[in-house]
């Protein structure tokens, strides 16, 4: 077990043009994917490559921080459980994973995808794994937003005060 001082920001930083932005994006997708989904997508596309552990999967917690309205002072939203691991492929690429929840198998798969995204298989993986994941996540978000929107109540006043 470990506790890490690293802070993940709820609010996404808009530092476009950073060299790691695309990697950040796919690691974020993998971190939030539902249980077993990445493995199913990966195994549908290709064989799992051999790898060696740099850090076997371990479970810990991290403090999630946020800002009210994305501009307020940062506050500690709460702790969340995360699983992390690091591995290296036989070809030398290193993959890291920090995913939500207590899911060691999923952390392994996420790190594998992260490592494979640095190889020439990146385009295939984007097509077969990342794009479907992103689509599913957007669909889930939209469905939830639609459900919430259906219960929205508009308050309006016909006349205000004594005007």
């Amino acid at each position, binding site marked *: 077990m*470990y*506790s890490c*001082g690293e802070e993940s920001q709820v609010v996404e930083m808009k530092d476009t043009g950073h060299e790691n932005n695309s990697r950040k994006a796919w690691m974020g997708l993998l971190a939030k994917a539902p249980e077993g989904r990445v493995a199913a997508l990966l195994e549908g596309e290709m064989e799992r490559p051999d790898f060696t*552990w740099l*850090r*076997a999967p*371990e479970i810990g917690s991290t403090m999630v921080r946020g800002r009210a309205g994305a501009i307020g002072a940062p506050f500690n939203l709460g702790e969340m459980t995360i699983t992390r691991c*690091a591995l*290296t492929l036989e070809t030398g690429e*290193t993959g890291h994973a920090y995913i939500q929840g207590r899911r060691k198998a999923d952390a392994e798969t996420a790190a594998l995808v992260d490592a494979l995204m640095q190889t020439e298989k990146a385009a295939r993986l984007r097509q077969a794994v990342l794009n479907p994941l992103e689509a599913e996540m957007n669909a889930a978000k939209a469905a939830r937003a639609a459900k919430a929107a259906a219960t929205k109540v508009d308050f309006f006043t016909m006349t205000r005060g004594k005007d």
Partner: protein
Amino acid sequence: MQANTLSGGFTNPATQSAHAFRSVMEAMARPGTIQDIEGAEPPASLSSAAGTVLLTLCDTETPIYLAGAIDCADVREWLSFHIGSPFVGPANCMFAVGSWDALEPLSAYPIGTSEYPDRSATLIVETPQLTSLGAKLSGPGIKDQAMLSLPKRAAFQANRMLFPLGLDFIFTTAHQIAALPRTTEVS
């Protein structure tokens, strides 16, 4: 980040750290005995024994002081990845690593307080070699007498005078460790 920063940790943390902890415990319990220890493969400037001790005893809440030549980017990155411990100066450390010359003077390290004698530093001293020759040791954990090659006797005698406060020492070389807790008398 370099690949050798990320490699060299325990491949099987549960078993390896338990074995390493057993070695450290045996060494501390029987001062003067030399124990085998293995598991970690740190960057070249840190011995395997010292790296294994650090991986076993340290975590994100144990400040480490790197003394002298050991305080280099390779070692810092390796410890950051595998342990995540903060790096501090000698006055605030819980563990200090380095050669004897780099670690001196011993007055720089916390020796604990009367209420909390355990809030003292443990010094991991990198030595060229460890042999059962040299200073005579006696005290708890030693049946009659033990011998250990120590860098400087006077410093350990002065440390013994501070008891129950004082520093504990772990001597490391290649794949071996020995220890000298504050209870041991050196002559």
